[in-house]
């Protein structure tokens, strides 16, 4: 109960000492959002399984190197985002697989298909800022931290991505 109430910083300190109950609380707190972040970028549930699991492995195994300058969540999601982008790029190189959520998944409805396809057509870097902003609810300053970009770059990348999305959707409509 204490672990559930404690904030991440306290849990991280406990987990660093080998307290796996604290680590379990961190896992429970961040797992679903981490998985969804991986899914939103890769567009694949299988890739999200791998990326999110490995991100937690790296994070927990590397807690001693976590310097606390950013929040644990930011640090963890940065690992997830980088791993997801790497997975997308690797997949592209290996099989020319068109990344992106091309297939209906979860509880998406039929009307989502058009937008899903348009998102899948975006470059991974652009799709990442869109899904981080609108699907995962990160604000631009947080996205800047996750992607290690200036906030201005996030805003401009987001604007360009939305413009490209609108163009893609208009092409679909017309």
């Amino acid at each position, binding site marked *: 109960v204490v672990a559930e109430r404690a904030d991440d910083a306290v849990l991280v300190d406990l*987990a*660093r*000492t*080998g*307290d*796996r*109950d604290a*680590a*379990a609380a961190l*896992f429970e707190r961040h*797992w*679903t959002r981490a*998985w*969804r972040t991986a*899914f*939103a970028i890769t567009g*694949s*549930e*299988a*890739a*999200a*399984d*791998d990326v*999110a*699991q*490995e991100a*937690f*492995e790296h*994070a*927990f*195994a590397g*807690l*001693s190197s976590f310097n606390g300058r950013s929040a644990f969540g930011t640090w963890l999601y940065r690992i997830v985002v980088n791993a997801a982008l790497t997975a997308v790029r*690797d997949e592209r190189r290996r099989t020319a697989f068109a990344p992106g959520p091309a*297939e209906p*998944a*979860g*509880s*998406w*409805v039929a009307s*989502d298909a058009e*937008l899903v396809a348009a998102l899948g057509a975006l470059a991974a870097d652009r799709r990442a800022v*869109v899904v981080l902003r*609108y*699907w*995962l*609810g990160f604000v631009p300053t947080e996205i800047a931290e996750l992607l290690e970009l200036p906030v201005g770059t996030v805003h401009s990348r987001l604007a360009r991505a*939305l413009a490209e*999305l*609108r163009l893609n*959707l*208009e092409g679909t409509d017309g």
Partner: protein
Amino acid sequence: MADLEERLETMAARLPAPGPKTTRRAAAVALATVSAPRAGWRRPARPRPILAIATLAVVVVLVATPAFGVGGELLDLLPGRGEAPRHPAEGGPPGVEPEKSEIPDVFVSCDAREIRAAFDPAQGAVVATGETVLGSATYASGAVSETCRRIPRGSFVPGEPLRVSYEPVDVVCTAPRDVDLEVHPILNGDTGRIFGSNLIVSYGNPARTLFAAVVKPGGARAFYDTKRCSG
């Protein structure tokens, strides 16, 4: 198109969530990587280039030597390299192009407390007790021994610290009670195709992980309990 941002935000509520099995497995492995810092631990000194090159040369020569290989004898028992045990529920001959049913998704209990586990990222993983192979996992197959019996799938709890290895390992592990084995395929959720398999050895209920192997392209690795396993 003015509502594009609103449409995107609306979709957020319909994003899929990780499945309970995925969550349970991820927790089992991830939590086990949490370990207490060693007393007096210091960051290792950066290796000197000449020493690193010399070490690499020795490793290359050793690996190129046929007699070399961690767990070589045990890994010889992997499907395609010899007879592997097949669970009655599994079906299908070994060495065949994998289909969705080729790798079982089973949780069994085996009459063994001491096991030997070998892992090679190029081949897969094998777990045996004495002369009996209890289970195996490769990129295209997975099996558990018919001497083990199916049991209900339990939940995992954090156990002792696990060491992760992306290199070949060969360890002997001792559990305080009979071990349980879990084998399941790793599927590409988009295509439904198998591209690897998992082999997890645990004990107790809730289960504590003793040895685990994730055999999949680009990330094959093994985990083992550092307190209950020795190489």
